[in-house]
């Protein structure tokens, strides 16, 4: 489980996060709700280890990981604009983390098709990143993050920038994915209904 305790962060005298504390139980989803610019993304980056908090600490499974570098935390992060690697195709993106873990080719292949199944994009292995639609990109980014079986999954505005039809469909699928994978998840959004749809608990930032 994930524990965030009394985290403070400021950028050049501008206090962005003030004494933030919360817990997310194993397998549960927490939604962080708040207007843009309230420090939601900063909080995700701190959990992921991309930013260092001024004070406070982060625990996963009761181990303090505040000083552990990002790549050793096993925390998945899906950026708002996905940040798929443009020089790799779909399977190259998804298996990126697996390669680093030293998985062999056939295992990777099986895992990739499994994950594509999970996000409803069967047969997309050899597609180019540049050929994907917005919704497809989001699904691939999700699959990529889940590939390494992260202890905590962080989603930054997962449904922003999609048109209404895609939005609704992805919402349903995302809910299913989170439920199926039983991953502890923190998602950030500014949409209250989305938050209550996806998460068991909601934290509101000001």
């Amino acid at each position, binding site marked *: 489980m994930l524990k965030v305790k009394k985290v403070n962060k400021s950028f050049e005298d501008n206090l962005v996060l003030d004494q933030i504390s919360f817990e997310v139980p194993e397998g549960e989803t927490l939604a962080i709700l708040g207007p843009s610019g309230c420090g939601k993304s900063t909080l995700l980056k701190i959990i992921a280890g*991309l930013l260092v908090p001024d004070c406070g600490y982060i625990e996963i499974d009761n181990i303090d990981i505040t000083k552990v*570098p990002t*790549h050793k935390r096993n925390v998945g992060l899906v*950026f708002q*604009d996905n940040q798929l690697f*443009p*020089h790799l195709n779909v399977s190259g993106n998804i298996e*990126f983390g697996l390669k680093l873990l030293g998985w062999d080719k056939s295992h990777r292949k099986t895992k990739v098709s499994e994950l594509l199944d999970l996000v409803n994009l069967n047969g997309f292995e050899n597609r180019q990143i*540049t050929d994907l639609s917005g919704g497809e990109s989001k699904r691939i980014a999700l699959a990529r993050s889940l590939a390494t079986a992260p202890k905590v999954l962080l989603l930054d505005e997962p449904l922003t920038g999609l048109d209404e039809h895609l939005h609704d469909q992805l919402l349903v699928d995302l809910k299913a994915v989170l439920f199926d994978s039983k991953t502890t998840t923190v998602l950030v959004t500014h949409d209250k209904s989305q938050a209550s749809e996806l998460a068991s608990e909601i934290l509101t930032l000001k």
Partner: protein
Amino acid sequence: MDRYLDANSSTLDVEGLNRISRKVRIVSLFAPIGFLTLFFLFPIIKLFSKVIQLENIFSVLSDDETFRIFLFTFSQALISTIASLIFGIMPAIALSRYEFKGRRALSALVLVPFMLPTVVVASAFVALLPKDLHHTTFAVVIVHVFFNVAVVVRIVGLALSQIPRELEQSAQTLGASPASSFFHITFRLLTPAFISSSAIIFLFTFTSFGVIKIIGGPQNSTLEVEVARNALVLGDISKAAAISILQLIFLTICITIAFYISKKKSIHLSSNDIVRQPVLTPKEKVYIRSVTCLTVLTIATPIVALVTSSFRLGNTWSIYAWKNMSSSQIRPGITTGVDPLSSIGISFKFALLAVAITLVIAFLAAIAIYINGFAGKIVELGFALPLATSAVTLGFGMLITFAFSPINWRGQWWIIPIGHSIIAIPFVIRTLLLKLRMRPHTWVDAASTLGASPLKSLWSIDILRMKRPLVMGAAIAAAISFGEFGATTFLTRTESESMPIAIANLMGQTGNIPRAQGFMLASILAIVTGTVIFFIEVKDA
């Protein structure tokens, strides 16, 4: 909305092609081709057909001496290119990723060496380097790196500024260490920029002339030097042309390969620049500080040496050269025959015209390459040829081509800046193309939906988006024009002695006054170019 261009092709899709008016395509294709044909292809073909004999080519090919020179030329160019990349990547990262105090000044400083005439810089290094290093390949490489770091910083830096940091961060959340995420993601995405800058630096150093003559010493000769030596000292123009055409063929093959790979590896990224980050962690601080110190030190030392030399008369300090900058007279009735101040004016006149011609032709050519398929490829290759052509060949070709009415232009002053722009255009095209190829055609879509005709939307949006590379292109063209020595000396001039030629003439005279004046002119050149770039950088913000 995130439809990008097809990743493996630089052309618009069919729909896009049809929307761009025929007129734009024709003008953008034929104006540059016409210019290139008239001022480059025609002259060199004329020269080759006049002086080359087949037996000469064969004898050059089987000549051990020429092969030895080729090997030296090739290896020093290869080493220089790799070294420039290695030394250029550090400041490139610092300048394009971080915001820190003095960034703009540093960014301007890095470009200054590129603007200085090779003759001057090489002389400064001769004074600086320990005697043991003179006339070594090592010294040649050092000076080449000094010149070409700017190319890496600009081209790789531009690409780097369009690679979002979040890509590396994504990789880190997937388990890649910072170093491995840089290598697996950023480094891979920089491949086209690496190839582009390597191609330019390789061409530049392969055809190096001034640096080799001064630093390389008599034992080390490049093909370019050999062409000049045969044509100008031994009077064997036929052999010179034979070497020149072989160099041209070899480099054309190299360029074609580079273009092919670069296009294959070309990746389209977001067209928006990422925001430069403030320096936060102690590690970053150390990095930025050491890069800044090292860069300032390497670039400033030769420039300071130049300026210092301008205050030296023999073994004493003197402001004589600066006090008398507008006069060639030394004592009543005795002059150096070189008027430093007027050479500055002439250089500015040349540079202004060279910049204007270069920007117009390079912009049209870049558009042509971008919107036309096969024809575009021809234009791209065609405009790379001047880089592979030795200056003597181009100068001599122009001399015999523009000799008859109605194109009897060889005595005109403006033929010199045209020569400069022929050399500058390939560089500027590459700078523009890098940006153009990052441009999703949604730009055109967006403007079209606002009611602009496709023609208007292409011009307006592109020009706005292209502002930075265009400014950069103008700086490159001005630099080449200011510093160009080879082709200029091979065109005959009347009362139009540009700065590099004035410097060479002054330094070619005996006595401490002309020498100090030569260093003074070189200092002015360094200071003026540095200031101009600095203001461009500041205005760019």
